[in-house]
């Protein structure tokens, strides 16, 4: 690598070649540039071609060299005045040297992660408690909530989610019937496909799958909406009006999804049973009437009660997690994305975990 510097008695000559400075020299130490760091430098002369037009890279290069040349003030010869002005501008605004962040070891990171998770869990529990306390205000019409907000959320979460809820549950019923039919047919027990699809759909699949669909659609949309409001200072505007965002934004959403989910659950059960019936009648020697009678006999009211209860809890959970992720979001565009992702992931994990809890409780109660 040829160096543009020539060292003289107590000075340096920087010769700019015709094609301009080689930018790979930027950031090189003095020794790599052919400068003896031990020798004092009192002046620096720039020799440039007649029509040299300098750029910020040249200014940065020269500035870097001058910073590395510590000692007495260096006189500059032949350096264009505007280039000198640019360099003094960069030097005149020293950036605050932020203390380097201490490196965190694995144990520290795990510990901090657990603490953050614990804090978030506490915040979530506090939010649930807050909602329970505010519910009477909502029911008696004293809550700072716009009725249109609840209706908007209901409309948005129902009409736009209905297609995907239909498709997912119809297919889940069909897949369950197909898998069941293949196995049960070998034992001559094909009719019991109706029992399998009926119980599994009503008790587990319909509430869980519908909640997961809502987590992906509605929960994510709640998080994105509230996080965007956070970034636009809309939540600050509410707070200055003494309107708690938990009441104005979270409560109507939780109420709306808790009301909507049982309706979607019933619809999802119906679709799932239809999906199972279509496959059973096509694959097995079962009539639609026979299938329906068997389904009716198999599904106990307790199954409906458990499924219905799950749907209410899952609805509230999806709304709470979506809103919480939005409320705790930062104020940048990236934070909106992170809030949305967190809302979906956390809601799905919570749905599965709470479903497992339901299973344990139902087993303990013998339901």
């Amino acid at each position, binding site marked *: 690598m040829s160096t543009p510097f020539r060292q003289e008695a107590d000075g340096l000559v920087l010769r700019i070649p015709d094609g301009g400075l080689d930018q790979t020299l930027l950031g090189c130490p003095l020794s790599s540039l052919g400068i003896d760091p031990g020798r004092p430098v009192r002046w620096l002369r720039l020799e440039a071609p007649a029509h040299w037009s300098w750029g910020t890279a040249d200014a940065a290069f020269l500035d870097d060299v001058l910073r590395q040349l510590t000692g007495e003030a260096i006189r500059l010869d032949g350096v264009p005045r505007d280039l000198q002005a640019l360099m003094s501008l960069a030097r005149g605004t020293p950036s605050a040297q932020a203390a380097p962040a201490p490196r965190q070891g694995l144990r520290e990171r795990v510990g901090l992660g657990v603490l953050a998770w614990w804090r978030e869990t506490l915040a979530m529990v506090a939010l649930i408690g807050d909602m329970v306390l505010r519910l009477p205000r909502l029911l008696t019409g004293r809550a700072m909530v716009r009725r249109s907000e609840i209706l*908007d959320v209901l409309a948005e979460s129902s009409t736009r989610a209905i297609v995907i809820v239909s498709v997912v549950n119809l297919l889940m019923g069909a897949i369950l019937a197909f898998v069941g039919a293949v196995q049960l047919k070998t034992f001559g027990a094909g009719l019991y496909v109706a029992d399998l699809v009926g119980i599994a759909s009503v008790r587990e699949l319909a509430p869980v799958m519908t909640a997961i669909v809502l987590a992906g659609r509605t929960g994510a949309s709640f998080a994105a909406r509230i996080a965007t409001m956070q970034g636009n200072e809309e939540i600050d505007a509410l707070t200055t009006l003494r309107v708690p965002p938990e009441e104005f934004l979270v409560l109507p959403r939780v109420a709306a999804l808790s009301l909507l989910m049982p309706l979607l659950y019933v619809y999802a059960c119906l679709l799932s049973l239809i999906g199972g019936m279509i496959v059973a009648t096509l694959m097995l020697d079962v009539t639609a009437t026979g299938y329906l009678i068997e389904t009716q006999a198999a599904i106990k009211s307790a199954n409906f009660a458990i499924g219905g209860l799950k749907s209410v809890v899952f609805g509230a959970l999806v709304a709470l997690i979506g809103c919480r992720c939005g409320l705790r979001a930062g104020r940048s565009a990236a934070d909106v994305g992170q809030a949305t992702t967190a809302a979906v992931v956390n809601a799905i994990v919570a749905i599965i975990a709470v479903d497992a809890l339901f299973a344990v409780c139902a087993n303990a109660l013998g339901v």
Partner: protein
Amino acid sequence: MTTPRIALHDVSVGYGGRPVQSGIRVEIQAGEIFAVVGDSGSGKSTLLKSMVGLQPLLSGQVLFDGVPLDDAAQDGPPPFGILFQGGALWSSMTLLENVVMPMDLYGHAPATARDLLARFKLALVGLAGHEDRYPASLSGGMRKRAALARALALDPSVLFLDEPSAGLDPLSSRRLDELVLSLREGLGITVVLVTHELESLYSIADRMLFLDGEQHRPVALGAPATLAATSDNAKVRDFLARRGLSDSEREARS
């Protein structure tokens, strides 16, 4: 002696326990237009947010008519309206709904009169005929004016303006300044504004407080023109004298 409309007693503001500004002692009288000025990152907006209760004070007290904000009746409306830097209009509502909502929340004025009042306030800021538009369909200047109408919804005695001219062209900025002056003259509102704009500062502010970002404390308090001429702080004089390059300076550089 009359009670000041706003009094700051030894106020310190900051984040995470780290003060950005300390030792702020100011009394703002009713009907005054008071500007908070300073270099970038000096804590102007932080001070404003702390004054309205969006951020806790690290120490000290902010009194509105002699009463701390936290002690004022929490069920009632706040004693102030605020215009945020970006407007902060609720995006899911029309302009009319944005202005009506604070009135609905506090039962301000008879329900039947709220629409009319909101329309009047929108007309006051030059947005008559735009009542049914959503914030996303407005220009920056219109959003600011609509947000100002919302800030006036509850007829507050104090108006906080956070960088009202930011992002506005000079004409819109000037119109906003005139509007603030008219509001003070017509309604006797006290205005506290955070600004960088010298034009606005000289045009409308009665007094200003200069926050020094390096010393983390206020370094000047007084009328802008007086401080520009007599302040013993070079930074304040320099700040207030900045009016762009003169012709001779421009010539010297070319």
